[in-house]
């Protein structure tokens, strides 16, 4: 068992008006080690907030998150986090970005760079090792951000709409890669997305959150064999079922 999320609620208080926003309400969730979990739901329902609470960037107003039995009090290198907007360090070139976490952990630079080159080769960026982030396309930046997190061998990986800005081909390629790498290493993944196709393609479980305040509305277990066939009837049925579930929420 990796994550135990117990009675988590989050209220935001805005600074200028005393208005309170209840973003999450009574979230209870257990996530087993090695599972790929997707969080879906209408915009503003608190997906990002929940992910940030799990990492430890934000404290819940109520409740606790446990990672392997330990209460989360702040970010940790045991939980990799991949942001929606790449978040590469603009002053570092690609390879130095990739080994940032290893450097921080005091690993010898030469070995780190050798490992980084292997990862870069895997995602087709070997020739871009010396380039700077501003010289890369959005898809390339996102690949760098992904391997920058993967290379640290954290036990889990939290991803916030990581593939949303990519074209379909790149997206599908990266989906396959992330799935393979994570199953090989038995990583726990929590994946926020708006893309139901993506969620069904990758997940062991899909968690649908309700409109604000976000609560767990429904959990779908996806038992289809990997690699999943997007054209199969079951795949399509699941997509329409989940889309409908979210759609109802958006109409309410």
């Amino acid at each position, binding site marked *: 068992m990796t994550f135990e999320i117990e009675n988590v609620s989050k209220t935001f208080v805005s600074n200028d008006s005393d208005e309170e926003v209840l973003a999450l309400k009574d979230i209870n969730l257990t996530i087993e080690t090695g599972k790929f979990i997707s969080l879906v739901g209408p915009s503003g329902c608190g997906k990002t907030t929940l992910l940030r609470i799990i*990492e430890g960037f934000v404290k819940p107003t109520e409740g606790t998150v446990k990672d392997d039995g330990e209460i989360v009090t702040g970010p940790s*290198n045991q939980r990799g986090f991949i942001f929606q907007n790449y978040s590469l*360090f603009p002053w570092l070139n690609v390879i130095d970005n990739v080994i940032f976490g290893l450097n921080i952990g005091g690993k010898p630079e030469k070995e780190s760079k050798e490992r980084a080159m292997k990862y870069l080769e895997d995602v087709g960026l070997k020739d871009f090792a010396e380039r700077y982030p501003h010289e890369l396309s959005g898809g390339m930046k996102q690949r760098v951000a992904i391997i920058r997190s993967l290379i640290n061998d954290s036990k889990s990986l939290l991803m916030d709409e990581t593939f949303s800005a990519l074209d379909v081909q790149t997206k599908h390629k990266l989906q396959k890669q992330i799935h393979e790498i994570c199953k090989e290493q038995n990583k726990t993944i929590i994946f926020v997305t708006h893309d139901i196709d993506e969620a069904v393609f990758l997940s062991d479980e899909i968690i649908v959150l309700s409109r604000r305040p976000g609560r767990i509305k429904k959990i779908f277990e996806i038992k289809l064999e990997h690699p999943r066939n997007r054209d199969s009837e079951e795949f399509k049925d699941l997509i329409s079922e989940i889309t409908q579930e979210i759609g109802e929420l958006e109409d309410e």
Partner: protein
Amino acid sequence: MNNFRDEYKKEMLILPIILIIIWYFICDYFQLIPVYMFPGPTDVATSFVKLIVSGKLFKDIFETIYKVLFGMLLASVVGITLGILLGWFNRLETLCKLIISILRPIPPIAWIPFSIIWFGIGVGPAVFIIFMGCVFPILLSTIDGVHRTDPVLIEAAESFGASNSQMLTEVIIPSSLPYIVSGLKIATGIALMCTISGEMIGSSSGIGYMILTSTNLFDTGSTVVGMLVIGVIGIIFDYIFTKIQERIFW
């Protein structure tokens, strides 16, 4: 690209050349203005050659640049260090805010009386005035740079397990560097200004001193040489910082 640059450079010269020609005709050819009021280009050129031959010009330039760099160095050490601390620790900033706000608008030359009382005559008072003039722009732009660090980059580093000191050296400082450098660039202009004013009052050397004393001797040619030298030093500093800024592109 190179062609474009060369043309651009040539074009820049047109107006100054025309102005020098007009100047030549007014002051030297028709002698409409007496030399003690304003020198012509030939007077300036003569003074320039004399100052070079006697070695005085280089000595004064060296004196002035030495003071500028010395004062800037002190101001940078204090301004950047303090700026990073105040930018990072909000409470410390609140604590110092009022003092900074009151000291900052005081023109550096207002410190001249105290600088002479405290440091006498020579390099000391000039360096002190330069320091007072430069430390605030450097301090404030450093604080600004720290504040503008993308919070997502800070979170990213946290998720890689960065300690507080690693956060400072690996994220906050590199991210603030462009702001620090533009603060330094502004400060060099102020430093030159302070040096010249300082040299005119509490000093017996440097270009400011040369400008002032040569007018006393009606050697207005040397005065203009001094003024132009300041301009050229300013351009050189500006060029150096522009080159540095090109290298820190983020």
